[in-house]
């Protein structure tokens, strides 16, 4: 299944590996940060809503 990359196999695999890793990192960091902010906001909003009930 793996194509024959010839004498440039290292360069091609390095380019794909590094780039995909960078894309995964930016997606992962975005999801992680979103989750963190959402949880903190929920806590603060619950604290605000609490005494009114």
């Amino acid at each position, binding site marked *: *299944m793996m*194509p*024959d*990359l*010839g*004498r*440039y*196999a290292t*360069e*091609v695999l*390095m*380019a*794909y590996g*590094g*780039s995909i890793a*960078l*894309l995964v*990192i*930016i*997606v992962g*960091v*975005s*999801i992680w*940060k*979103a989750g963190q*902010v*959402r949880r*903190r*906001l929920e806590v*603060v*909003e619950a*604290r*605000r809503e609490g005494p009114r009930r």
Partner: protein
Amino acid sequence: MASLWEYANPRKFMNTSAAVLPWVSAAAALCLVVGLIWGFFFTPDDFRQGSTVKIIYLHVPAALMAINAWLMMLVASLIWVIRRHHVSALAAKAAAPVGMVFTLIALYTGAVWGQPMWGTPWEWDPRLTSFLILFLFYLGYMALWEAVDNPDSAADLTSVLCLVGSVFAIISRYALLFWNQGLHQGASLSLDAEQNVADVFWYPLLVCIAGFVFLFLALVLYRTRTEIRARRLKALIAQERMT
């Protein structure tokens, strides 16, 4: 038809982006998976570049979006400066790390490709140098947002930085036309069929470009939503401290 300015309302933006985001994310994932698999596994080697031609499916879309991300930030910054819409300032802030990563991918894949093809991973060529400066502008832009405590002042200052950095974004796009003594070859994409890359490389490249565009849109929408929540969080905490 709804006015574009309605999306300056954070609530309207949150509702609309929540509906659009799954579709844009799915389109990004589909195009990237199809385009990269097609390009990597099912395209032939180039008669001069050998298998390194497969790097084009990452390098060209990343470079294209690195420049366009900055231009999107410029438009959002100008909207902030002129109309003071917070969502536009936050969208520019949200786009910066994404653009920075695309610039890094373009620089990295260019260096990996350049070593066997040019005999060097780096050359102080006009396009390469302007791209490196663009990358530094991205870092400076992100650092400035973090360094200034007042969000409105941070948005003002980063807007000015964005305006200045736009010069390098434009230079990195058109450097080849200004200076033709550089090492970097001409544009891979052209409306002229004879100048454009061969169809066998062109179609998977188009799919990869679409994938990067959708990924950028999805990440900017997602991250802008996070920035809006973070801004609300900061405001609520400040309110709590005052009462």
